[in-house]
């Protein structure tokens, strides 16, 4: 179950905001385990283009998703300036490659609006809400939608 | 009260320990007669419960060995056995057993018998 930021209750919500291309996205900071610099990943054969491969996270195998490619944009030309946001989804841990971390926002849940229905671009299925902070539109990412689809689970 | 329980069956050891623990009686266990004598040398029980059929040293021999020791000439020793036959009891008696309890045992009866023979 993913967190629903459109919940009517007015509790505080902390979001980690980051840049992908020219756009700004955010994710519930409670889901973020750590932020680390880019290091080359070991590519996985037959993987979708947005899966950059796997890296060694202190002995664990961490899959890396290129968020730009996942959202249907050009893949990120990763350099050491790029960052990987390590996120926890229930039992799964996922590294998300973004351009840069931009901000930490504290909002009320009521500040977040649901995405407009008419959006039929690829991005919409990964966006669970929108908010405006200092005239910047920030999209709230639905992490479950970002997870790579791997067909069969374990062999 | 502190009791030494000797039985080669882990299940029976566990059950005896449980019955005794629930009655507030502390216990130590051993897996056969040889092991029993070894444990006995490191504790001072108020009573001993022992099985008969055991590897290395059976219950009869174990009781005889215990009775040879000055400190344990009069210690109550209860035999825990599935054999209710008369000759088994006689043999246990000859070896120096105080009494016997037939498996499967009722925890309350086991504790009752222990309290009786120890006067506790």
């Amino acid at each position, binding site marked *: 179950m993913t967190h629903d930021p459109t919940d009517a209750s007015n509790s505080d919500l902390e979001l980690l905001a980051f840049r992908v291309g020219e756009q700004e996205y955010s994710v519930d900071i409670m889901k973020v385990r750590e932020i680390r610099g880019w290091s080359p990943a*070991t590519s996985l054969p037959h993987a979708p283009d947005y899966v950059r491969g796997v890296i060694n996270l202190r002995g664990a195998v961490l899959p890396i998703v290129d968020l730009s490619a996942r959202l249907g944009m050009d893949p990120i030309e990763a350099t050491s300036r790029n960052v990987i946001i390590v996120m926890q989804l229930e039992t799964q841990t996922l590294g998300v490659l973004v351009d840069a971390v931009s901000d930490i926002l504290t909002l009320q849940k009521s500040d977040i609006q649901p995405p407009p229905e008419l959006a039929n671009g690829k991005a919409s299925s990964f966006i669970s809400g929108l908010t405006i902070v200092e005239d910047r539109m920030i999209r709230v990412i639905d992490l479950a939608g970002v997870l790579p689809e791997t067909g069969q689970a374990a062999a | 009260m502190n009791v030494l329980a000797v039985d080669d069956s882990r299940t029976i050891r566990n059950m005896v320990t449980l019955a005794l623990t629930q009655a507030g009686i502390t216990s130590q266990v051993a897996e056969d007669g040889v092991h029993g004598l070894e444990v006995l040398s490191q504790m001072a029980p108020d009573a001993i419960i022992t099985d008969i059929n*055991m590897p290395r040293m059976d219950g009869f021999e174990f009781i005889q060995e215990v009775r040879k020791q000055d400190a344990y000439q009069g210690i109550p020793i209860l035999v825990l056995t599935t054999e209710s036959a008369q000759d088994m009891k006689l043999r246990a008696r000859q070896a120096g057993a105080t009494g016997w309890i037939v498996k499967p045992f009722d925890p309350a009866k086991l504790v009752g018998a222990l309290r009786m023979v120890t006067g506790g």
Partner: protein
Amino acid sequence: MDPMAEIKASFFVECSELLESLEEGLLQVQGGDTDPETVNAVFRAVHSIKGGAGAFGLDDLVHFAHRFETVLDEVRSDRLAIDADAVLLFLKSADSLSDLVAAARDETPVDEAKNTVVIAELETLMPGGGDTNETSNDADQELNFAPMTLSLDLPAIGSQVDADIGEVTDEAAATTPVWTIRFTTEKGLNQSGNEPLFLMRALAELGPVTAICDTADLPSLKVLDPSQTNLHWDLTLSADTSQTDIEEVFEFAQGLCTLAITKNTSDQSTPDTADIEALPDLPDLPALPDLPAPSVDDQAPAQPATENTPHEAPKPPAPTPTKAAPVAATVRVDLERIDRLVNLVGELVINQAMLSQSLSAQNLTSNTTISTGLDEFQQLTRDIQDSVMAIRAQPVKPLFQRMSRIVREAAHDTHKKVRLVLEGEATEIDKTVIERLADPLTHMIRNAVDHGLETPEKREQSDKDPEGTIHLRATHRSGRVVIEIQDNGAGINRERVLSIAQSKGLVPTDAVLSDAEIDNLLFMPGFSTATEISNLSGRGVGMDVVKRAIQSLGGRISIQSTPGHGSTFSISLPLTLAVLDGMVIEVSEQTMVVPLSSIVETLTLADAEIQTLDQGTQVVHIRGKFVPLLDLAVEFGYRAPNVIPEDAVVLFISAEDGEPYALVVDTIHEQRQVVIKGLADSYGYVPGVAAATILGDGKIALILDPVDLIARAGSPDTPTALSMAG
């Protein structure tokens, strides 16, 4: 879990251990072992199962174990001599007992009919066997010995017993009955650890007791030996109780005392009652400390031969007999905890490798202090790894012993005579490997009996012992465990195997195959040599499944067969599943690991001859044989087809059907052990990839799954693979 449920769970664990030692003992007896202790151990195993089962009310199990035990008791008491048939029956009974344990554990129904037959067979061994009526009555009585109560079946002792229980009801309404008990201690009572005072206290729990010691018969004090002296006690009990209850109090003293219990007439007034604590009155003797009589002030009654009372402060006992041997202490640990430790040690191994690598990269290893320290660190890490792996390791013995049942049943079903010889049962291997080996091994053992060995008649015709032999052996061989199943049967009938394979279209009819190639046809999917469906075949499992199971454990399987002399199947397994022997390779700048177990041979491409067939299929011509070529870089999408680098290397991989494939890689780096990291949990299934590992530089390398790779590369049974050049 509540404590009883926990004990019950551990009971079933204990049962499987007991069943193992039962079978082991019986097999020793079968092998000619005449040591009485062996039979004793067999008896004890059944006895312990019965004892525990009784505690949990597992009546079916108790019932069967009791019958079995009764016969074994006759054997161990030398009242019953046994022959080979009897031992076979005992083994069969052990199998039934094992089924009953499983049924009780899994709460599944039992095959009563089968067990009844076994019980009936057991009864025939008993003296006067066949008289089942009487025996079963006896047994039922034994079983109904009032479970969960103290045994009360000793006959009443004492000559003046006046059984008058019938009046209790009549008098209950009137006054409390009064019982007079004449209790005379006999020699031996003290030695038995029984204490008259405690007996009287226990009696007082039934009702108020007066106790008077009759000192008239006491000898003079000078000759008084407490342990030899008979003391008379006249006890009066006011209690609405029965003679049986009173006798029960003295149960432990029976044979060491005489009891005369009388129930007084009802109109007799109750005598002055006093609690036993207030008595007894021993006018002449209270000052004597050594007197065996109970004395009220003494909380601790005097004991003969020692001033210390046993239940307070016994002296340290004399040294234990010399035959006392230390018992190995064991700890039961959750498998999960061990696996966590195994994982951590895996990290340590990687970490150590990374450290070594970075130190040597900076030329720091020329410093002797550093390099010595590093060597020690490496040694230590290895030792820790070995020790941790040893925790997961278990002897193959239980697994092997299970196979003797398989052999018995298979021999029975096929009317063959088979002897199973186990060797190297102490060989240890990872627990999970053992668990996952059970099914393939069972299948292979069945095959050995069903297909490997001949019928006794055929064997006799060939001047062979009508009894066939199967050797099941485990050995350590260069860091792996090798398990061999060897039969002394007829060997593989290659002519028949080939014709079957041809008739099933598995090989072209004109193919000419070597003996080894024909043998390997057995591993092809869909192959079965059974011309008629016997009990043992027809289970939908073939040797291909066996091979796949072995390969999934990182193992290899091979066959050696000599016509007329039998076949040997060898399974080579890694010691553990957490670590894999791998070949580190590179392809398109990606470092990968190929399991060593799947590599048959390596060649540089210059030595191999590549030929392109139609549709761009490439084959390597090696030793007169065309082997399909698979470019790993192409398979993984790293490179366009047909641009194999000049100095590429070819790994010959054994596919699922035993056919070789040539896998092209760019470079071979080294052969090393790697720690296996699952990919499935963190990412998911990757075609052609089994798992990942972390190399010395901290980077992740993928571990290939060659079988999966080949299976995905196209239909594996192209005739090309088998065409021969001569």
